[in-house]
C-alpha cells in the first residue's frame, strides 16, 4: 500500500514537472513580447531576453498622431501615425464580416439541418469539393473583380465582401449542433401555428446560444488575424487602408524598417492581441463546446 502511494506521488511529481516546463515554454515567447514592448534603448534590445531599460514610448509611438512620439532609432518614418487607423480598419472589417458571416453560417446550417430539398445533397457535395482547392488561388480573380467591377481596389470594404460572402460554406459545426436539437420542438411550435421563419428566429436561435457565440468568435478572429488575403487585396501602396496584420508584418520585415521597429512591433502585437485574448477567455466555454462538437461530427 505504501509503495502504491509512493509511486503515485512520484508519478504526479513527474507530471507536475512536465506540465510546469511545458507551461514555461508556452508562456515564455508571450512574456518576451510583452517585455520587449516596454523595452527602450539601442538596437541591441532585440537580442536580449530582458531589456535593460523600460519605457512606455513604444505604445505612445503607435498613437503618434495624437502623442507625437516618434522612433529615435529609425531613419525611415514612413509608417508613423498610421497604427490607430489600421486598428480602426481592422475593427470595422472584423465586426462587419463577423455579423454577415454569422448570419450566413447559421442560416445555411439551419436550412441544411431542417429542410429536405432537391439540391441539398448536391450543395453539400460541391461544398466539400470546393474545400479541397487552395483558397488563395481565388484571390487573383477577386483582386480584379474588386478593382474593375466593384471599384473597391485598396478599400477595406472589399475585404468585408471577401471574408463574409463565402462564409456559408463553413456550416459543418453549426449544422451538427442544430441536428442535436430535437425536432419535436419544431413540431410543437408548428402545431401552435408558428411559421418556419418564426421557428428559426424565435425558437431555434435562442436555444443555439453556444453555437452562435462560437460562430461569432471564430468569424471575428479570422479577419482580425488574417494577413494573406488582406495584403494581396489591399496592396502595399495603400498604407492608410492597411489592416493591423499588414502593418505589423511590415514592422518586422519591411525594407529599412525591420531593423529599427521591433519594439514598436511588440507593442503593436500586445495592443492587437489583448482585446482578442480577453474576448477569447471570456467566451472560452462556448469555443470549447464548438470545437469538441466539431471534432466529433467531423
Amino acid at each position, binding site marked *: 500500500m505504501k509503495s502504491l502511494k509512493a509511486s503515485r506521488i512520484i508519478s504526479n511529481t513527474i507530471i507536475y514537472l512536465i506540465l510546469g516546463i511545458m507551461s514555461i515554454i508556452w508562456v515564455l515567447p508571450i512574456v518576451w513580447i510583452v517585455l520587449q514592448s516596454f523595452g527602450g534603448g539601442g538596437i541591441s534590445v532585440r537580442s536580449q531576453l530582458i531589456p535593460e531599460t523600460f519605457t512606455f514610448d513604444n505604445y505612445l509611438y503607435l498613437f503618434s498622431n495624437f502623442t507625437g512620439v516618434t522612433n529615435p532609432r529609425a531613419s525611415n518614418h514612413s509608417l508613423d501615425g498610421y497604427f490607430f487607423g489600421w486598428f480602426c480598419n481592422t475593427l470595422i472589417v472584423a465586426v462587419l464580416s463577423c455579423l454577415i458571416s454569422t448570419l450566413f453560417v447559421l442560416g445555411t446550417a439551419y436550412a441544411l439541418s431542417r429542410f429536405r430539398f432537391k439540391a441539398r445533397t448536391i450543395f453539400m457535395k460541391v461544398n466539400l469539393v470546393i474545400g479541397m482547392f487552395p483558397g488563395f488561388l481565388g484571390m487573383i480573380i477577386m483582386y480584379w473583380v474588386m478593382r474593375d467591377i466593384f471599384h473597391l481596389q485598396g478599400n477595406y470594404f472589399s475585404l468585408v465582401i471577401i471574408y463574409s460572402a463565402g462564409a456559408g460554406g463553413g456550416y459543418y459545426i453549426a449544422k451538427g449542433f442544430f441536428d442535436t436539437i430535437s425536432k419535436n420542438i419544431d413540431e410543437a411550435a408548428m402545431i401552435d401555428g408558428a411559421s418556419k421563419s418564426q421557428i428559426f428566429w424565435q425558437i431555434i436561435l435562442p436555444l443555439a446560444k453556444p453555437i452562435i457565440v462560437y460562430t461569432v468568435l471564430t468569424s471575428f478572429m479570422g479577419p482580425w488575424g488574417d494577413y494573406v488575403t488582406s495584403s494581396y487585396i489591399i496592396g502595399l501602396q495603400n498604407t492608410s487602408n492597411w489592416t493591423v496584420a499588414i502593418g505589423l508584418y511590415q514592422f518586422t520585415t519591411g525594407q529599412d524598417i525591420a531593423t529599427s521597429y521591433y519594439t514598436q512591433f511588440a507593442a503593436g502585437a500586445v495592443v492587437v492581441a489583448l482585446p482578442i485574448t480577453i474576448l477569447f*477567455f471570456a467566451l472560452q466555454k462556448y469555443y470549447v463546446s464548438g470545437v469538441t462538437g466539431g471534432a466529433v461530427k467531423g
Partner: protein
Amino acid sequence: MSNNTNEEIKNSNEKENPQVNSVFARKVKLINPVVYFFTVVLSAIWKAIYWLFDLVVSMFTSIGHFFKLFGLGVFHGVIGIKDFFKRKAHQFKYNDRSGRLSFFLFGFSSFSNKQYVNGVLFALFEVLYIVFFALFGANALYMLTFGKLGLVAPGPDPFCEDEQFCEWINGDNSIMILIYGLLWILSIFFFLYIWNRSINSGYNNYRIKEFIHFEQLYKDNIEISKKFDAEAKKAFEEGISCKDFINSKKAEIDEYVSKIENKKDADYTRYLLINNCRHSYKYFKTVKRQENVIAKLETKREKVNQICQDGLKAHIAECDEKRKAYTGDDPEYFEKLDISIEKYENKNMGKLAKWDNKIKKQNHVLEEIHKRYLTFVEIQETRNNDKYGKFNDYYKYVASLDAKILFYSHYQEFKDLYESKLDKYQEKNEENVQKIVSLGEEMNQKITNTRTSFDAIREKKKALNDELAKVKVAYKEEVKAIKAANDPNKNQLLMEAKAKLVDGTTAIMRSLNDLPSDKNIKLLEKEEIKESKNAYNRDKKYLKTNYTSEEFAMQEVIDMMIVEYKLNYKDAQAFAKKLLITENKAQRFMTSEEVEKELNTLDKEKEQYVKDHPDKYNGRPVSFKETVKSLFNDKFHITILSLPVIGILFMSIMPLLFSILVAFTNYSTGHIPPTQLFTWIGFDNFATLFNPPADSVYVVLPNALLRTVEWTMIWAIVATFSNYILGIVVALLINKEGIRLKKLWRTIFMMTVAIPQFISLLSIATLLKDTGALGRLFNDTFGYRLGFGSDGSANGVMMAKIIIILVNVWVGIPYTILSTTGILLNIPKDLYESAKVDGAGTVTQFAKITMPYILFVTGPYLITQFIGNINNFNVIFFLTGGGPSIVGSGLLGLGQTDLLITFLYKIVTSTNNPQYGIASTIGIVIFIICSFISIVMYNKSNSIKEEDQFQ
C-alpha cells in the same frame, strides 16, 4: 499462419468493440514478461505490415473507386439530361395552349391564370435577358472562345505614323474578358433554370385546373392496367423480351384507345398503357435479379457452412487424440481443450452470422421492392393526388361557410352566455389567484422533494466512501498482523489479503462510479429546481387575475365555441368579435331579424357554390401573395439560403472555375493586363511543370517541385501526428486523477489559440533570427550561428525543418487538447477499472484503450487536420517565408522549406516574375493530391461509414 489469422480476428474485434481490450489486458498479466514482450513486438510489427498492406490495397481500390464515381457521375449526368428533355417533351405534348405558349413566351400561362406578378416577372426576365445577351453576351462569349481573350492590346494606335500625335487605343483586357465570359456562361444556366420554372408553372396550372379530369382518367384505367400487369409477369416468365412484349400488346391498346372519343385523352391513355407495360416488366426483372442475388448468397453460405463444419470435426478429432495421448498432471489441460473447441465453434458462428446478415439485408431489400410496388397508372394517380389535389379549395370554402352558419344559428345561445357571465369576472379572478397560490405550493413541494432525493444520493455516496475506507483500514491491519506474525508463507498470505482488498474495493468502486460525481449532482439538482420553477412560471402565465367584465364574458363565449362546437381557435376569435356590432359608436347585440338575414344570405351562398361545383373541385393556381408567404414557411430554406448560395457561387465557385481556366492560358510576365493580352495555350503549363523543354529556364522545375511535394507530404504527416499524439498525451496528463489546477494548465495552453497566429509566429520568428534573443543564445552556446531560414547548407535546412515542426507543435497542440478533452472524459470508466484490476500498466492502457477509442471518434477530424496541414500557410510563411532559398533561380523563388501553397503564394505575389498560369496549374495539382488523400482516408475510416448510415 494460424497465429496471424488469430491476430487479424483480434484486430477486427478491437475495432468493433473496445471492451475486448479489457479481456486482452486481463490475459497479459498471466504471461511471463519476456514472452509478453515478444508477443507485443511481433504483433506490433505484424500490425504495421498489415496496415501498410491495407493502405496500399485501399489506395488502388480508391483509384478504382474514384473512376467509378467519376464514371457514375458522367453516366447519371447524361441520363439526367436525356430525362430532362423527355420530360419537357411530355409537358409540351399533354398541355393546353397557354401552357405550350409559355415554352416560348415566359409567364404566358401565368397571365392567363391571373398570376399577374409572376407573369410580369417571367416576361421581364426573358425580354431583358435576350436584349442584354444580344448587346453584350454574344460578344463576351465570342471574345472568350474565338477572340483568343482579346484582339487589340491597349496602347498607341499601331497604324499611325507620327508617334507624337498618336491616338491612345483602350484595347481589350484579357482578365475582364475571362471574367465576363465566365459570368455569361453561368447566366446561360440561370436562363435555362428560369425557362424550366416557366414551363413547370404552366404545366402545373394546367394540371391543377384539370385535376378532376385526370383523376377520372386514371380511375378508368386502373383495371386494364392490372390486366396488363399480370400479362407482363407471364411474358417475363416465358422469356419474351420487353420490346417484343410491348409490340405484341400495341394492337390491343390501340383497340382499347379507339373507343375513347376525345383525341387528347386517347393519346394520354395510350401513353399510360404502354408505359404501364414497360414498368411492370421492369419490376419483375428487378425482383428476379434480387432473388438471384439472394440465391447466390445462400449457396455461398452453404459452402462456408460446410467448410466450417469440416474444420470443427477435424478440430474435435484432434482434441480427442490429444486427450488420449496426454499423460501430464495439469488439471486445467482438459478444460483448455474444451475451451478451444468452444472457441472454434464461436468462430464458426461468427463467420456464418456475417453471411446470414448479408442475406437478411438483401431479403429486406426484396421486401421493400414488394411493398412499394404499384402499377404505373396507380403511381400516376397517387402522384396526381399528392401534387395537385392540395390546391382544391372546395372543401375548405364549404367548411368556412358551415362554421359561419353554425355561429349565426346559435347566436342567441352565445348572447345569453355572454350576458350571464358579465358579472362573474371577480369570482374567476379570485379563483385564479387561488390557483396560483396552490401552484406555488406545488412547486415548493417539488423543490423539497428534489433536494431530499439528491441528499439521499449524497448520503449513499458518503456511506460507500466510508465503507471503502473501512476495507482499506481492515487491509492495513491485516497486513500488520501478518507481518507481526512472521509466518513462513507470509508472501502467500499477503497476496491473498491484497486479492481480497481488490475484490472488496472493485465492487464498491463500481457502485461509486455508477453514481454521478459531486459536480454533476450539484448541476442536476440545480437544473431540476430550475425546471420546476420554469413550469410554475409557464402555468402562471395562463391564469389571468385581472379580467374585466367584458373580457371575461368574451373569453367564456370563445371557450364554449371551441369546446362545444369544435370550432378552431382562430375562427372562434373572429366570430367573438362579431358578437357585438358597433353602431353610432355604441356596441349592441344583433337583433333576431338581422341574424335571420345573415343566415339566409349564407345559406343561399352555400347552395349556389355547391351548385356551381358539381365535381366538388375548385382548383386555383397559387397567387403571388401565397408564394411570398410560403417563402417564410415551408419554403423558408430558399429565403435563407439564397444569399449564402449566391455568395458561395460568386466568391468560391467562380474564382475556382476562373483559376482552372487560367491554368490553360499564358497569363504571366509579358502577358499582364491591362497593358498586355494573354491567350489560350492548351496544356503548355502542365508541360512546363512536368516536362519542360531542355532549353527553357524551367528545366530544373520538375525536380524541385518533386522535392517540394515530398517535403509537403512529410510535413503534413509529421505535423498532423505529432500534434495529435502529443496533444492527447498532454490532455491525459492534465486530466489525470489527482492532478490539481486543471483549469490553470488548460488556460496556459489556450494562450496560443487566443493570440492571433501571425503575432505569435512573427514574434517567434524574430526570436529565432540570428539577431534575435534565441538565435544569439544559440550562437553563444554552440559557437556557430543558427541561420534559421537563411542557412542553405543541408544541416541548416534540416535544422530549419525541425524547428518549424517544433513551433508547429507549440501552436497546434492546444487545438488537440481542446477537441479531445471531452472525448477523454467520456471514455467509460469501467474499461480502465477492469484493466487496472488486471494489472495493465499506464502505457498498455493508453495503447489499448485510450488511443483506439479516440481514433474511432476523431477519425474525420484527423483527415481534415491532414488536409489543413497540406495547405498550412501561416506557419511556414511567418517563420521562414519558405527560405533558405534554392540557389540558381528560374525556380520562381522556390525555397527549401516551401510548401506547395507558399510556393503558389510566392509565384502569384511576385512583383517581377508572376506566373499565374503555372500557379493555377500548381493549384490543380494540390487539389488532386488533397482529394485523392481524402478519398483514400474516407474509404478507410470506419466512423465515416457509420456516420453515413447515421444520416
